[in-house]
């Protein structure tokens, strides 16, 4: 687990702007030197806790097409899927999911069809054409029925923020 100091450094890092002598204020606040901060961050990166430090791109502004995609896929095809997913750079997150419903106690809720989709991932591609080409290719390669692939484009963003430390 993280030490208190490491946690403090991580928290302060979240609000840093790119500038010269980037750690000078943080170093005063935490009472350690900039080189110590660098040392801690390098070790966090080494351990894989800090994956990278840099910009988050807005893929939409770059003209990219992206969506959350859900698949209904049989167990036997999972190896094939894994291989497909790992070689496609536009797929950044892919999870297998198991659904449960939290409904009203009194009312019986049927198992919704959408909960039968067991693989969920995000796909980004450089424009709409190449996006559609990729989803079609995936359907062909994995021999998926058209109703086994659900493309969930976003209509509206309410929140996108990861500040949990």
């Amino acid at each position, binding site marked *: 687990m993280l030490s208190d100091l490491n946690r403090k450094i991580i928290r302060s890092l979240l609000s840093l702007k790119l500038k010269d002598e980037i750690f000078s204020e943080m170093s005063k606040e935490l009472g350690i030197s900039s080189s110590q901060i660098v040392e801690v961050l390098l070790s966090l990166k080494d351990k894989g806790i*800090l994956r990278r430090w840099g910009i988050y791109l807005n893929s939409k502004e770059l003209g990219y097409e992206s969506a959350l995609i859900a698949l209904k896929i049989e167990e036997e095809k999972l190896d094939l899927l894994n291989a497909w997913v790992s070689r496609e750079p536009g797929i950044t997150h892919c999870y297998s999911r198991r659904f*449960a419903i*939290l*409904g009203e106690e009194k009312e019986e*809720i049927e198992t919704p069809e959408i909960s039968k989709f067991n693989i969920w991932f995000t796909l980004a591609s450089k424009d709409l054409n190449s996006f559609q080409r990729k989803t079609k290719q995936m359907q062909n390669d994995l021999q998926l029925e058209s109703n086994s692939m659900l493309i969930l484009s976003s*209509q509206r963003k*309410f929140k996108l923020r990861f500040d949990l430390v």
Partner: protein
Amino acid sequence: MSNRLLNTKQVTKQEKRVLDALYDIPITESPLSEISQELGITPDQLLEIMTNLEERHVIRRFAPVFSHRALGYTSNAILLFKTNNGNLETISKVLAKKREITHIFQRNNIYNWNLYAMVHAKSHKELITIILTIKNEIQVPILIGYTESEIKKTSLRILEVTD
């Protein structure tokens, strides 16, 4: 690296180089000078290009990316809600206030489960507690998609996304 990988309409060649250099910056006491030196421009020029890209919303933010798992957030789920014009705003507002909820998007589809939220917790018990709290506040059914296994997790790097 060739320009065909990017829609050049949106960014210039120099901006592309800046975006690439700022994707994973070196961890040193003065990263700004180091990066600008590498790009052959002054630190002020680099900041100017960066600010401009931020104003055009090409750059969403500048921040560290931590591994959820390494930070202890090992229990994750996607939450699905069926909302209508009447309760979409209210439900998304309740969700947005929760620190543990990181993504909230409206995504319309034939099944009418149209609101999607990602929730992260340090244990299964904590995850359930958060979901029950939400359930209490919003009073509509929640479809919970527990993460069974992680097949892939990386971040999008524009230069890699080709045809």
